[in-house]
């Protein structure tokens, strides 16, 4: 089977449980958004999948092979995060060469072309790069490595608006030419909402949502009206619908609903769609 399977992963550090029985599948050739608040367990999950951290329980398999201590499985994956795996005094251009020795599919010419587009000085030492350029450096590696599974942990950290725009465009271009699995963990939900196809929302180490962006949004809505009207509408909702939050201002109330599209609305109530960021805020509050 192609894809990455994460099965019953649990991980705890000292007194905190970072991941609780997480089961997920990353299909081949899809772009995922991994969304969660600070400390939700996103980075731990990505580190475990790429064998940089070890789970207390559970296992990960890549295209049917267990990933733990398995070079063949690990060569299919590439993770970028705040960790720098290169010697501090190494220059950018040398880092490209080194990457090529680990990943034969790494396209050095493309990495150099991207460096020019981002105006990254390849003669600079990695440690001397600013936060933004550290991110750019890592993104260039990730976009040039040509492996089936690429994990971007906070890829746009410190990037200005122009560079963020360029990054998303290059990612989509690369993906269109040769689809691979990209998992993007980010706090800038609005920016990735239309880039991703699948959404995974993680909260306190547990998976809250794991479905396609379209299905999650088509089955969510905001209903507004007077308090009494909204309350009686909520009472009439089918069991599968879940009210994930509400706002009251004066006599007006808005409820955020998951699992119902809000069709067939009684007179006087107003329905609007929910965007991914709103949904995320409501689901992960408290």
């Amino acid at each position, binding site marked *: 089977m192609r894809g990455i399977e994460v099965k019953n992963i649990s991980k705890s550090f000292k007194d905190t449980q970072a991941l609780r029985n997480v089961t997920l599948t990353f299909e081949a050739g899809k*772009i995922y958004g991994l969304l969660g608040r600070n400390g939700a367990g996103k980075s731990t999950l990505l580190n475990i999948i790429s064998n940089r951290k070890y789970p207390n329980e559970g296992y990960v398999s890549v295209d049917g092979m267990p990933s733990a201590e398995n070079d063949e499985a690990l060569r299919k994956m590439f993770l970028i995060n705040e960790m720098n795996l290169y010697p501090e005094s190494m220059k950018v251009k040398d880092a490209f060469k080194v990457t090529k020795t680990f990943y034969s599919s790494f396209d050095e010419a493309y990495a150099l072309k991207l460096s020019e587009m981002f105006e990254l000085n390849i003669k600079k030492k990695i440690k001397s790069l600013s936060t933004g350029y550290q991110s750019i450096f890592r993104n260039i590696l990730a976009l040039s490595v040509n492996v089936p599974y690429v994990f971007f942990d906070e890829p746009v950290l410190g990037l200005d608006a122009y560079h963020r*725009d360029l990054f998303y*465009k290059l990612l989509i271009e690369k993906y*269109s030419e040769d689809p691979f699995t990209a998992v993007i963990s980010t706090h800038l939900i609005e920016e990735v909402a*239309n*880039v991703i*196809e699948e959404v995974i929302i993680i909260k306190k180490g547990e998976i809250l949502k794991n479905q396609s962006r379209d299905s999650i949004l*088509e089955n969510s809505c905001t209903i507004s009206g007077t308090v009494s009207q909204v309350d009686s509408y909520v009472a009439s909702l089918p069991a599968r619908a879940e009210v994930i939050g509400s706002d009251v201002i004066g006599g007006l109330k808005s409820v955020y609903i998951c699992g119902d599209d809000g069709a067939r609305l009684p007179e006087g109530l107003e329905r609007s*769609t929910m965007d991914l960021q709103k949904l995320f805020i409501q689901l992960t509050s408290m």
Partner: protein
Amino acid sequence: MNINPGQDKPIFIQIAEGIEDGILTGAFPEESQIPSITEFSVNYKINPATALKGINLLVDENIIYKKRGVGMFVAEGAVQKLRKKRQDQFYTNYISSLIDEARRLGISSEDVIAMIERGFSK
């Protein structure tokens, strides 16, 4: 073509309607090639599956056709077809919301009609 993620409409519908607008205004003439899925996706920073979903709506309605290995083209008769479709949707898309707002404001149907006539005579 303007794609606005903040709008209530799903992006794939916005893509389909944007192309429709292009066909109606003559930006994409009949039998001419339209941009590829990749061009739409990269330009609007949207997932290619979303662009494909939008374009497939138009393929299903025979407004766009695909030539294998070449690209996507505007079908002959697409303008006529779209005009008819938009005319059919005119009531739902424009008139009902106009009436809703008129009711909220207490504007009579006679006043609305007078305003429409004034607009047309401009």
